[in-house]
Structures are given as structure tokens and as C-alpha cells.
């Protein structure tokens, strides 16, 4: 089983189609809703954790794109500069998904991009500017 956090953007023309239903039933993808923002008739934004075999995930994401859903893989959005990071831990105070977490044996801060939902709070919290990327939440635009 693999898992991927993705941001799905639904434009008004496809907002009311049962796309996620089909993703689950026809492509065997297990989904978990991490965040959702729906502006009726304008745009829907969903952050989902998708789980399945590697093959299912590839087929599932291809299906979403066929349906004209804009798919952004969140693990690719945030980046840590390993040279800058001093493992102070300030980012772990705000990380919502434990994508940044502390190895209790060494107290090193570990970055797990696959858990990231690209909220961008770590960019704000990092005192040495080790985190960079595009946050999906406009309020946290850096």
C-alpha cells in the first residue's frame, strides 16, 4: 500500500459530478479527507490522502485528470534545505500533519513530504528559512 497527499481543484463545470465516488468504487482508492473548501458554483478544493497500490494510484490519478480535475501532489510542494535546517524544532509546533516531526532518540527534526498538506505554516515558523515552497492556502502565502 502506498499513499499520497493530493490537492484536487474542481472547476464549476465538474463540481457536481460523482468523481470521488468513482475513484473509490472503480479504481479501488481509499481516500481520507484532510481538508476541503467548497465555494458553491465557483471552485472546490479538496486535500485527500489517497491510499492504494502504486498501480491503483497511477490509474486513479490518471482518471481524475481525465475528468479535468487539477491534481497537485503535495509532497512535491514543500522543500527543506538540509544545509539551512538546524533541527531546532520550531516548525513542529505548527505542523498539522506531523510531516515535520522529531525523532525522540536524537531530537532531530525529520521531514516526511508524503504527509505534507502544503499549508505553509512551517515556512512562517522556521527561523532560518530552511523551508520553501508554494503553500496552497492563500492566507499563508509567503
Amino acid at each position, binding site marked *: 500500500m502506498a499513499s499520497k497527499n493530493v490537492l484536487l481543484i474542481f472547476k464549476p463545470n465538474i463540481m457536481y459530478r460523482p468523481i470521488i465516488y468513482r475513484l473509490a468504487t472503480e479504481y479501488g482508492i481509499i481516500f481520507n479527507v484532510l481538508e476541503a473548501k467548497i465555494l458553491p458554483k465557483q471552485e472546490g478544493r479538496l486535500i485527500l490522502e489517497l491510499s492504494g497500490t502504486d498501480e491503483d494510484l497511477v490509474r486513479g490519478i490518471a482518471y481524475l485528470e481525465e475528468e479535468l480535475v487539477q491534481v497537485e501532489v503535495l509532497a512535491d510542494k514543500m522543500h527543506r534545505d538540509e544545509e539551512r535546517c*538546524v533541527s531546532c524544532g*520550531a516548525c513542529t*509546533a505548527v505542523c498539522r500533519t506531523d510531516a515535520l516531526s*522529531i525523532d*525522540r532518540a536524537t*531530537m*532531530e527534526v525529520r521531514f516526511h513530504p508524503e504527509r505534507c498538506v502544503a499549508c505553509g505554516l512551517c515556512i*512562517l515558523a522556521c*527561523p532560518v528559512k530552511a523551508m520553501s515552497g508554494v503553500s496552497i492556502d492563500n492566507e499563508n502565502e509567503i
Partner: protein
Amino acid sequence: MDIPIQRSYEEINEKIRQGKAVVLRADEMTELVSSEGVKSAFKKVDVVTTGTFGAMCSSGAFINFGHTRPKMKATSVWLNDVEAYGALAAVDIYLGATQVQEDDPLNRVHPGRFRYGGGHVIEDLIAGRPVRLRAKSYGTDCYPLREYETTVTIRDLRDAFLYNPRNSYQNYNCAVNLSKRTIYTYMGILRPNMANATYSSAGQLSPLLNDPYYWTIGVGTRIFLGGAAGVVSWRGTQHNPDAPRGENGVVREGAGTIAVTGDMKEMSAEYIRGASLVGYGCSLMVGLGVPIPILNEELARFTGVSDRDIVCQVVDYGIDYPNAVNRALCELSYAELKSGRVEVQGRNIPAAPLSSYPMAVRVAENLKSWIRDGGFVLGAPQVALPSAPFPAV
């Protein structure tokens, strides 16, 4: 400091010169003392090294940028558009770590980012990066030049000394936020309704927690500062030996501080970092370590202190702290804090550190190898820091 001496500085330094000194990091000493006891640890160990790495706002640099031609008595000076204090002799300045770059929007759009300030200039200089220097003056007969602008690296500067009036706080608060909005503090981002806690100490590795009565740490103590050999130059500002102590002598809150000095030309940007604390300001992250000579059994016991035996005060930064309400919600040990989850007022909340324990280990490890392999001898303090009676009365 009038303490029983079972092993002298001379004896320890002689062993260091011969490459025979036994040196442990404070966390290793903690393990040794707990497994073999104080007496055995005292017999085995000559020196314990400590370390800490975190934002220390009371930091800055004295810089002499060398005389210009014609000469100038600089009154206002900027480095990369960060203003330094120029009201000293002709080309001497003091650059404070928290000075923010000109035209920074500060907190006008809250929370401000504080992208560049004095701490960043200090890091840039130590890293050998070029820095724009600009100076103004009113002109005198002996110092006629009124304006000067040039690009310098640290090699071009006559002198660049780190001079930090308050570093390495002996202990520090754990911060929470009881207000109803997110706050952006020097203790990091604190979520409303006490949704998280932050703390900032290396705990069992922290210098002054391993010598709680400052028996060996005083003016003249040679230390690790920013990757180079530095020195304790005075007691730090706000130094307070009279803070409450536990039965083990360890302070339960802020208490002692040290002022430290070192040559920036010898430092490494790995251990000195400019810091941007969102919504708060600019600062400097400092890597600092102090070697503690094990002069007697009591010092073996002190340096054997573990995170379980060190507590700090949990303080509300939402309402209490800004209003100078001196109240603690409870005490927590560093063992609890480092577990990542703590109980405060009956609630289980996440706790995040702000000072880097891995970097503190690296500082202590470096200092250990300097002493063991590099003949770094210990300086006996020439002036003691104000202390408290021992045993506690």
C-alpha cells in the same frame, strides 16, 4: 569561589596537555553517574562538556572597519542596510542582533516576516559573504570625510568581535497561549486555547544547568563560541542567582546568565545563524559550550543531572506575560517536554522545542574533541559570578 578542591585546574590542564584527560559530554556524564554513581564518575572523569544552540537576542558585534582615506568619524553606519550603533570612536560600531533592516514593514502587516537584520549580517560576515557598508558623518578638522560606501568581507575588517551581553540562560520558561487567537512570539507560534507548548533549553546539556552555583563558570572561563574559542567576559545582564532552586540545587526558572566574547574571524556560520522570528523580530542563533572541570564530587553530581531532574515554569504568553503578570501555570521537567506531549491543567498537549538539541550535542562533542585531542586547556575563573549559598538554606 571557595569550594573543596579534590582535583585542581593545574592537574586537569596537565592531563589535557599530555592528551590523557578523560572528557565526557554532559549527556554521557548523566548516563555514567546513573549507572556507576557519583564517586566512581568523579574518579573517572576530568572534564564534562556542555552545549546549547538557540536564538539569543542579547547578542551583537563590535566591529572596527578600519580608517578610511581621508579619515572619517562615522556617526551613522549601516551594514547591508541594517543600522549599527556608531556613537563610539571614529570607526568603531556595535551591531545588535535584533536590529531590523531599513524599510522592513515590521509588523504593519501582522505577523511580520523580519527577513533580514543584525543577526543575518553577523552570519553573512562569518560566512565570508560580501556586505555593503555605508557610513555618514558631520565632518571635523581631523576627520573630514562625510560619506563613505564600500563592500567588505570579514577579512577587510580591522576587528570583528562577537560581544553578547546575555547568553545561555540557565533555564527558561515553557510557553503556552491561553488567549483566543494565535500569537507570534519569541517563543514561536503559539496556538489559541493552549493548543500547544514550546520550550527553549538544552536541558541536561545546557551549560549553566550543569554548574548550578557557577563554581567553575566565571569571568575568564574559556568556552566554545560559534565554532571558535571564546571567553566568559562578565555575568550576563539579568543574572539572578537567587531564583528558586530544587533540592538538587538546580534552578527552576531563568536565573543565571553569562556575557560572552569571541573573535568572529575564527567562527563558523554553522554555529552562528541569523534568525527571523515571525511576528517578533530578528535575532541570532548562537552555538555555545562550556567545559566544566570536575574539581570535586559535588561537580560530578551536578554534571550528572538528567532531564528528569530539571524543571521549568509553564507561562501563559497570551495574557499573563505581555501584562507582566508573574504567574506560572505549573512546572514540567525537560524529560516530559522532550517526550513531545505534556500535561498542563489536566490537558495533554504537544510540546515543541525551539533550541536545537542535536546542535547542542554537536557543540559539546566539538568542545570534547578540542580538549581531548587539541590541547584546549581550561581557564580558571578570575572573577566569580554572583552565586547562592550551597547547600541551599
